[in-house]
């Protein structure tokens, strides 16, 4: 199949397995998606002090995400301008300078080249090679939203706010619970033999898998929500560049619903003050509580509220995660725990325990998810399997009309449905198709120059 027919099939909700296994498709994704879109790199709380840095990748490209000596966040290519050696080989730390181990070219944490051994003798001094004009290459675009640090390799990328669109309304439930924002721990990093899109699609809207894939966590009394009939009462929303799942709440009361998922009164009051009337309405009038979500292409979020101890206490947690592709069939999962900075100490500790039990490298939800993701990827390599078009048409009638109407009085931006349906996964893949078919000729989004 050529790319146009693949995208056409995907847009009809019939998915060629090759999109999860074909290295040629991945090569195009690397250029047309990861080379253009806004990529999440780090959270500001990981680098609170001047000189603090973490090293992160956009596919193969390594970047130093550093708070420079003036307190400004920078995203600098981890590449010495002389011979291309990585100037920083640690994963995190604090440094005023990065010195290349090869020939000792030395850069300040602003990126400026300040040390060049035998500058006069070897390069003819500033007259022939001006140090002032040389600096570690910054990522073409950098944007920070609620502490989340994003970069784009495309200098013509639309603003991050435009990319995110109405999804920022939902993102606030995870990372904007008070004026202080969140602090993160981690990340856990591990490699799975799965295509990166599978997790991104799953988190965006797969409420249908929860009752079966995660049956065991209900059976052991860890999480009371995902029973089949209950899960389908949640809303599936999509707005701007992202979408997610939610659970139906028991009351029509803001504070009672947040208390139901385990937030203490002081945090609820801060949320009440922080969120807009329209945001509060999701929780009081929907009434819905956000759960998993994805901002395209590969940033996902989770919010669940398991039973965290033998006393039966329910405590929610938030996780931020990146599906970092390595190849068509391998992905590094990078998963952070996040909690509001102003949360009481006891809440932070119990919420952290909730996270570790449920998601991340050892999480009991995640363990079963990855089994699905790796198996699907392995199957998608098969030549006979590639004759199948996978059915992603849940929620659509044969003629393409919706089986259920969108929620009429949805308090948030975008569109939302209750009941089971793959509305959001199709939306994620529709955007994937747009990027893939955009060869960068004329549009403002183009980068293949």
């Amino acid at each position, binding site marked *: 199949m050529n790319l146009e027919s693949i995208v056409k099939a995907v847009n009809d909700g019939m998915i060629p397995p090759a999109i999860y296994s074909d290295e040629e498709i991945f090569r195009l994704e690397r250029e047309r998606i990861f080379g253009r879109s806004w990529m999440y790199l780090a959270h500001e709380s990981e680098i609170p002090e001047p000189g603090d840095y973490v090293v992160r990748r956009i596919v193969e490209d390594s970047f130093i995400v550093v708070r420079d000596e003036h307190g400004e966040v920078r995203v600098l290519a981890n590449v010495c301008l002389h011979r291309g050696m990585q100037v920083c*080989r*640690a*994963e*995190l*730390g*604090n*440094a005023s300078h990065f010195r290349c181990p090869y020939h000792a070219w030395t850069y300040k944490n602003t990126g400026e080249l300040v040390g060049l051994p035998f500058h006069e003798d070897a390069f003819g001094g500033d007259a022939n090679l001006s140090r002032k004009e040389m600096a570690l290459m910054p990522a073409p675009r950098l944007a920070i939203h609620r502490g989340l640090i994003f970069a784009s390799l495309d200098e013509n990328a639309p603003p991050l706010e435009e990319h995110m669109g109405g999804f920022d309304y939902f993102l606030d439930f995870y990372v904007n619970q008070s004026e202080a924002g969140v602090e993160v*721990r*981690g*990340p*856990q*990093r*591990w*490699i*799975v*033999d799965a295509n990166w899109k599978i997790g991104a699609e799953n988190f965006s809207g797969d409420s249908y898998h929860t009752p*079966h*894939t995660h*049956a*065991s*966590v209900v*059976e*052991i*009394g*860890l999480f009371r929500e995902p029973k089949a009939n209950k899960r389908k009462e949640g809303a599936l929303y999509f707005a701007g560049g992202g979408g997610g799942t939610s659970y139906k709440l028991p009351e029509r009361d803001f504070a009672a619903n947040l208390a139901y998922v385990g937030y203490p009164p002081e945090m609820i009051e801060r949320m009440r003050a922080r969120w807009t009337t329209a945001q509060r309405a999701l929780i009081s009038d929907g009434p819905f509580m956000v759960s998993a979500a994805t901002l395209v292409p590969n940033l996902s979020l989770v919010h669940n509220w398991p039973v965290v*101890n*033998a006393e039966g206490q329910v405590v929610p947690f938030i996780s931020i995660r990146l599906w970092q592709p390595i190849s068509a069939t391998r992905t*590094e999962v990078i998963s952070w*725990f996040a909690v509001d900075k102003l949360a009481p100490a006891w809440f932070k500790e119990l919420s*952290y*325990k909730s996270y*570790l*039990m449920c998601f*991340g*490298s*050892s*999480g*009991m939800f*995640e*363990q*079963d998810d*990855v*089994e*699905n993701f*790796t198996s699907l990827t*392995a199957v998608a390599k098969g030549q006979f399997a590639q004759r199948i078009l996978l059915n992603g048409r849940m929620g659509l009638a044969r003629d393409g009309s919706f089986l259920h109407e969108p929620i009429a009085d949805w308090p948030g931006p975008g569109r939302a449905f209750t009941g089971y349906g793959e509305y959001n996964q199709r939306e994620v893949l529709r955007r994937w198709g747009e990027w893939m078919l955009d060869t960068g000729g004329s549009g403002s989004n183009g980068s293949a120059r």
Partner: protein
Amino acid sequence: MRSAPLTSTEGLARVTLELHHEVTMFLYEEAEALDNGRFRAWLDLLTEDIAYRMPIRVTAAHTLADSLLDGADHFHEDRYSLEKRVHRFETDHAWTEDPPSRTRRFVSNVRAWTAADGDDVIVKSYLLLFRSRGDVREPDWVSAERTDVLRRAGTRFQIARRLIAVDESVLRTQNLAVFL
């Protein structure tokens, strides 16, 4: 960045040959229980106040001393959460281990000291976990050093503390549906 505390053995006396043999056999038998899927029996080897931790390893500059994070873990478990994990494997729906992995835990380099404050024994051991799943996948390996505090419980030992210092910063196993 803060570094995870490791139980110090500085100035402590090594255990007798007889006790060394006893704790080594304890670790071998623990590995045998886990490799054979006897998770309930494994839980019985842990104290009620078990603290079971596997901090995240990072690649840090200059030294290994700061390479285990404090407050950022793969596991940070107590009795409740370990019981839940074992209970989950006993259901019919823990798909990630159904069919189960074939695991082999190689335990070596056992060193043991008598704790300063009584009968506890501090044991350090190397662990190499081999994990094979299905038929087409490459096997996974997890390499770590464990520091345990073993406590006398009648005629036998129980694990009161375990700190797993994993060697990889990026795990090459699809999940930690395994105990280390």
